[in-house]
């Protein structure tokens, strides 16, 4: 069904149309070979054999042979019998409906031949004069028929050749049209396929963008949630990192410098935590670090290492009330990666972060969750 606003050609199965075109082309070629060439065979295969000869030609030959015999020995009984046989064959090949209908000399000629046969059967004398006076007419008639039939055959052959040439031209043109249509349909299919691939790629890019923070390039809160779901059942560590007095930083240095600080912080966290961790910006100056973590000690080490690395970076903070450098507060918790475990772990890390801030910031704390709380 065509949806409103969608052009109809978006819904055509171009590949099928293309395949059908090429199948049609093959069928056309098969038709040409299977059915048209036998017709050519029927026209031209009879040359060189008896059925390829005109009946009039064969009749004239037999009549000629009979007359030759009679002219040589008209009174010899054997010769007369042989001549009678030849002339009967001539009569049978001459007595054709087509000749009777189309050539007015046929019936008189057949009558003359019939009279000659009767004479031969009745042992009546057949003289050379009688033969010359009566039998030359059938010979002329048969020759006339031959010539006319040859002309007609030539005309029919020429017409057939013309028809075949026209037919072949039509078949060639049809083949070209079908071929071009097939190519066109295939091209449309290719365009449709590329359009679909491009659309899919764009969708994936948009989906990817939807999960990323445009300022720092790291994942956002949705990505954090998706990654936790992907790690279902595993023991995870979650660090929530907050820049202390970031608002004052922005107020004193401006938002562009604040943005640069955020990007720098991402680099520092990634360097400090190494491979196998995922970094997310949850909003404003709050980041999260997610990694697989089997025990609290490992989580402590990660927090310590992170805070010390950030302190070592000694990023200037001109409006910090207690320091000349940027400081960070980190709250951490371990949890089992499922929906309830994540919510609990996230809340615990947030509480730990709050407690660090309550205690004056620039520090870290790991939430103390027992194994039952972690398992949910």
């Amino acid at each position, binding site marked *: 069904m065509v949806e409103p606003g969608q052009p109809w050609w978006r819904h055509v199965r171009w590949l099928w149309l293309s395949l059908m075109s090429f199948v049609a082309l093959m069928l056309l070629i098969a038709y040409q070979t299977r059915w048209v060439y036998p017709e050519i065979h029927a026209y031209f295969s009879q040359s060189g054999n008896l059925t390829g000869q005109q009946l009039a030609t064969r009749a004239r030959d037999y009549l000629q042979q009979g007359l030759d*015999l009679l002219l040589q020995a008209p009174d010899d009984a054997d010769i007369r*019998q042989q001549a009678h*046989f030849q002339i*009967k*064959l001539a009569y049978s*090949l001459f007595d054709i*409906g087509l000749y009777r209908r189309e050539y007015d000399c046929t019936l008189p000629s057949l009558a003359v031949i019939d009279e000659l046969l009767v004479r031969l059967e009745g042992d009546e004398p057949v003289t050379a004069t009688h033969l010359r006076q009566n039998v030359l007419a059938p010979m002329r008639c048969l020759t006339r028929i031959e010539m006319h039939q040859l002309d007609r055959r030539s005309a029919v052959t020429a017409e057939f050749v013309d028809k075949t040439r026209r037919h072949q031209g039509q078949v060639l043109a049809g083949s070209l049209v079908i071929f071009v249509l097939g190519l066109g349909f295939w091209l449309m299919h290719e365009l449709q396929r590329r359009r679909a691939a491009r659309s899919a790629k764009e969708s994936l890019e948009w989906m990817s963008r939807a999960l990323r923070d445009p300022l720092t390039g790291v994942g956002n809160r949705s990505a954090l949630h998706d990654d936790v779901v992907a790690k279902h059942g595993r023991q995870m560590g979650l660090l929530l990192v907050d820049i202390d007095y970031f608002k004052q930083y922005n107020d004193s240095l401006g938002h562009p410098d604040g943005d640069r600080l955020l990007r720098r912080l991402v680099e520092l966290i990634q360097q400090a935590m190494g491979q196998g961790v995922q970094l997310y910006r949850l909003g404003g100056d709050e980041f999260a670090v997610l990694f697989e973590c089997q025990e609290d000690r490992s989580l402590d080490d990660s927090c310590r290492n992170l805070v010390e690395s950030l302190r070592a970076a000694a990023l200037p903070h001109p409006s910090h009330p207690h320091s000349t450098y940027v400081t960070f507060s980190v709250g951490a918790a371990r949890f089992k990666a499922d929906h309830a475990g994540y919510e609990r772990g996230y809340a615990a890390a947030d509480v730990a972060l709050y407690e660090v801030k309550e205690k004056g910031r620039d520090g870290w704390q790991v939430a103390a969750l027992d194994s039952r709380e972690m398992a949910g």
Partner: protein
Amino acid sequence: MFQSGRDVYGRALAVLLGVLLLAPAVQANPDSLLLHDGEREIELSIESLRERADVEFRFFEPYLSEEVSIRGLVFRDLLVEHFGRVPPQLHFEAWDDYDVTLSDWDDPNWILVTHQDDEPISLRQRGPVRLVERDYGSRDPANLRNFNDWVWMIRSIEAVW
């Protein structure tokens, strides 16, 4: 009319040659049909075939361009009777020296014609026996090339296995 001795000898020689050339055709008996199956030869009299002719119909005869009454035998039955079964091919020889080998004879549509318009056919009617298709379908009777398989003046039939 004066004729030289050379003319007389030449004429005699020509007659002799003619007799020798035409001898096979004249020696054969147009009143019989020969069937060959390997070494076996069966001679069927045309008269017996005429007597046995039991199929009658009217149809438009393309070579005569008119409707005629035909009587004859179902050719396939004759083949089975004398060859045991229908041979895959048959080699025909005709009285007009036409010879041809054709296949696909296991078809009751082929009739061996012995009579036309209630008269026995002879060489003058392209007999003494000839083959026709009782029903030639949609083939154009005006184009006689459509009927090249209709063998006339049949003298002998040889089974080709």
